[in-house]
């Protein structure tokens, strides 16, 4: 059995390891909500008729994961959010389980901020892919 001293040493080692490797599954430095800026953002998917796509049913994941994927694509595309939006829609089209053609689905990025004590939201639309922009047929 580990002595108390060794338990503390194990904890210290894990903290140092996770702070060093940052995100290396299964270790993490747990950066979520480590700051509270005045602005937050989320994404959603919508069909050609403007209705939102239920991300859970259509993709087997959640809106938060889709936003993280979008940010990964933005990093990969050197900050080009338009190209990142299309790359993400391409990635999602491969696992799309919704009824509509995934090439008609748009990605909407929404910024939420506080202006003079009131909550304000602003949207940016990416996509749709269009028939020529899907590398693998769904």
């Amino acid at each position, binding site marked *: 059995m580990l002595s108390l001293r060794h338990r*503390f040493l194990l904890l210290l080692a894990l903290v140092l390891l996770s702070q060093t490797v940052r995100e290396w599954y299964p270790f993490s430095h747990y950066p979520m909500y480590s700051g509270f800026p005045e602005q937050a953002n989320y994404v959603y998917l919508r069909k050609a008729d403007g209705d939102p796509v239920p991300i859970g049913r259509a993709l087997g994941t959640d809106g938060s994961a889709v936003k993280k994927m979008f940010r990964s694509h933005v990093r990969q595309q050197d900050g080009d959010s338009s190209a990142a939006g299309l790359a993400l829609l391409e990635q999602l089209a491969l696992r799309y389980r919704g009824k509509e053609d995934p090439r008609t689905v748009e990605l909407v990025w929404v910024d*939420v901020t506080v202006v003079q004590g009131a909550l304000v939201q602003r949207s940016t639309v990416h996509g749709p892919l269009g028939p020529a922009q899907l590398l693998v047929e769904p």
Partner: protein
Amino acid sequence: MNSAGTVPKAISQAGGVEVVLTRLLFAVLLVLYSPVWSAFDLPSIPFPNGLAKVFPLEPLLGHALPFKVLYAAGLLGFVLHWRPALSMAVVALIALLAGTIVQSQGAIGHGGQVLTVLAFAQWATLLWAKRSGNEAPAHAHRLMMSVAPAIMAYVYVTSAITKLDTSGLDWVSHGHFIAVQVVKSHSSAYYTSLDAGLLERGNAIANWILAHPDLSRLMLAGGLFLELFAFLALLGRGWGLFFAIGLAAFHVAVGLSMQLWFTTHVWLLLLFLGHGVHWSLRALDHLRGGNAIPLAQP
């Protein structure tokens, strides 16, 4: 226990009620919250993380069934204490592969990593028990319960350090800006399920926070305190219970206000940091008025 208040022989031989229940509950969590059931069906590994940065894991995709069967068999072996070290090795390795694939989709989540770390800890302690020549379930349980609280505490201490490193004490003083995060998380949850009530609820909570900024700062300060000092939970089962309940309550408050449910963490906190099975059996034993349930030694 039978009507006479004694423990059946089979459970005594398996290490006692506390040992069997802890093992069973851990196995249930490894079933319910494992990425194994979906990971190997994913189509690609677009953003390699962890092991996927070193080894190409794409050849594993599309072969879900053998991994699921092996994982289930490993868990069964672990629960029945049949070749427990080997069984847990299979579970831990498959959990590592599955978690790595899921975390390599460009969306790193933080709800389940610790489950895999604990699976490896369980493997290590079972191996340790085997090497020391004492494979008795109660001995392996004592080893695990000396290691697992340190793993649970690490999660919260490192999370607090990251917060202080990123924001300093602004994490508390700017805490009222959590209002925009509340709108974000409720909107995100709405677009996941299209449950219409979520948008209205998110706006109501966010506006309440903006109207009562000091209360939200006070709550966040309490959460940060619990995370930063979670290492004190290693001092004993009583300390462990205090921090486990405090952190679990914080998770529930965050879940209710932000739709961020760290359910795996809540159960793992109660099981491993709070020694929940030990305290529950002790309370039950107290209610039964005696020494009907032999408890594991610390």
